[in-house]
């Protein structure tokens, strides 16, 4: 069974005079444990695709099944519940709450599940520890480096044990060295914790960390292939090993 399955997914934005086909008959299946990169130029529909599979947006027509459940026609609050339990988000701009400690940022998804304070704190601490942020629990985002902020965001994405992590240009705001660190981390999560990762990026280097690349153009899937490890990626791996 697929974790993510779309059948004839269409998303049409009605701009009055013209209609924009952001997604055009997209049929994709992603199995649990996969690491998929979604690529394409801006306006290709990759972000719309992410929003739909992230249950942030609903398709105009077609079906989206998450763990076999059709999310079409669900209410706002039902979608929120699914996001909370099934999906972890990692954004380009980190999207941490300002003036709020790393610990409380990680606790945020559990706040809306009404998990008791003690358990919430323990799980958040464990997640931060796993991401090498021990001792930074009470730092605010503006006291952390970009890489550290993104790791807090990843901890937040993982803390509810969501089976799916959606990463939207997670390294877009980071320097090369930090980008490699973050990508290594995501690879590790995928390989060791068997978390399904869908990564949106326009950087080929970053996409190389995945095992499958889906390319979008004008709302359509133009290619969908398993990755052949190429030389540059191998050398990347070699450099990365210094940091892990």
């Amino acid at each position, binding site marked *: 069974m697929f974790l993510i399955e779309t059948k004839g997914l269409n998303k049409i934005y009605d701009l009055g005079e013209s209609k924009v086909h952001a997604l055009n008959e997209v049929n994709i299946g992603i199995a649990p444990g996969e690491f998929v990169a979604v690529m394409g130029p801006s306006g290709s529909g990759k972000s719309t695709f992410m929003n739909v599979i992230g249950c942030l947006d609903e398709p105009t027509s077609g079906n989206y099944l998450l763990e076999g459940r059709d999310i079409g026609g669900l209410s*706002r609050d039902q979608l929120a519940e699914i996001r909370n339990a099934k999906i972890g988000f990692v954004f380009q701009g980190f*999207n941490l709450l300002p003036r*709020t400690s790393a610990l409380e940022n990680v606790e*945020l*998804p559990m706040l*809306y599940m009404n998990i008791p304070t003690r358990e919430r704190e323990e799980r958040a601490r464990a997640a931060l520890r796993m991401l090498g942020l021990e001792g930074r629990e009470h730092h605010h985002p503006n006291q952390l480096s970009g890489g550290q902020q993104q790791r807090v965001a990843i901890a937040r994405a993982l803390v509810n044990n969501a089976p799916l992590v959606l990463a939207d240009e997670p390294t877009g705001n980071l320097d090369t060295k930090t980008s490699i660190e973050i990508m290594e981390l995501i690879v590790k999560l995928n390989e060791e914790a068997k978390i399904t990762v869908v990564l949106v990026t326009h950087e080929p280097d970053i996409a190389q960390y995945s095992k499958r690349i889906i390319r979008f153009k004008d709302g359509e899937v133009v290619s969908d292939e398993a990755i052949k490890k190429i030389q540059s990626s191998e050398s990347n791996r070699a450099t990365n090993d210094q940091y892990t």
Partner: protein
Amino acid sequence: MISIPNTLKISFRALRVNKMRSSLTMLGIIIGVGAVIAMLAIGTGASEQVSKQIASMGSNLIVILPGSTTSGGIRMGAGTTPTLTSHDADAIEKECPAVAEVAPVLNGVAQVVYGSQNWSTGVVGTTPEMLSVRDWPLQSGRNFTDQDIRSAAKFCLLGKTVADNLFGELDPVGQIIRIKNAPFTVIGILASKGQSPTGHDQDDTVYIPVTTAQKKIFGTSFPGMVRSIMIKARGPEYLEEAEAQIKELLRQRHRIGPRQDNDFTIRNLTQMMQAAEQSAKVMTLLLGAIASVSLLVGGIGIMNIMLVSVTERTREIGIRLAVGAKSWDIRLQFIIEALTLSLIGGLAGIILGVSGSGLLSHFAGWKTIVSPLSILLAFGFSGLVGIFFGFYPAYKASLLNPIDALRYE
């Protein structure tokens, strides 16, 4: 769903971040609640004072004054022609069923002397019924008896002010004082009644039997003359009936023809005072209403700030929605924020209102009464204002689209 304590924590943090803005917003509510409490305190104090004065006049009171003389076309005003007698008083008591008690009054100013002390005061000749007509209890001693009246005894009752001025710490009962040089035995002291509605010290008086006043102190232009008659009706609902009966009786007794004017005037003091009391109540309501407007303005201030806050924190709302906050979670967060502003403002406003009323009565000498009800009302109202004006911004926040909110710069 998020729990209330966690929501409270989020709200407090948000309010702390913008301390200046939060406290200015609260100031609107503080002033509003403070004004409502202070205004109601002033109004309640005023109407309480009026009520007290009415009670001090005696309830269901009717006063009959002699009519006016007309001399050469110039009317001289009520009481210028002595037309009333003690017999009128007796007749009213006997023949008017709506009347409970009657006390004739023959009064004047006289010097009263005890030992080396002397005092000028109003001396009132009357009957034992006077005390019940005016609801005026004795502090000590006894009232006159009918026998005292018949025999024109030289007994007197002292008002508190007179007793204090002549006797100081001594007990006046049984002592002998001189009124216009005639010796009178003090048989009782009247309880303190305080000021009349017109500001006159009601305790500055001496009561003597009406017969004694007529024969020995003031004299009369014809036998049995009195200056006025005070009447207590059976109850508030009998006031008009009593007035009509008295008018009928006195016209008959004074032989006034059908086309002639009355030679007396009937005044219903209670009605006058009730009107005053009513207007005091209306004033309280009016003051409260005006103060409520400022509370309303404070509420609009909250709404304004909450709308700004929702816009500023669009991204935060987007993050919360993305990680699984439901509409209600977001709504609750902003409503609680508004409620926190208004309730803290309300509490501070209560302190301001209560202390403000205290200062007013202390420095301006106005009587103020802060009723627990007005505090509860103002506090409850501020809470409602918070919920009412917080709801729309909260609702707006909860409807944000998570994608747009996350992208908001």
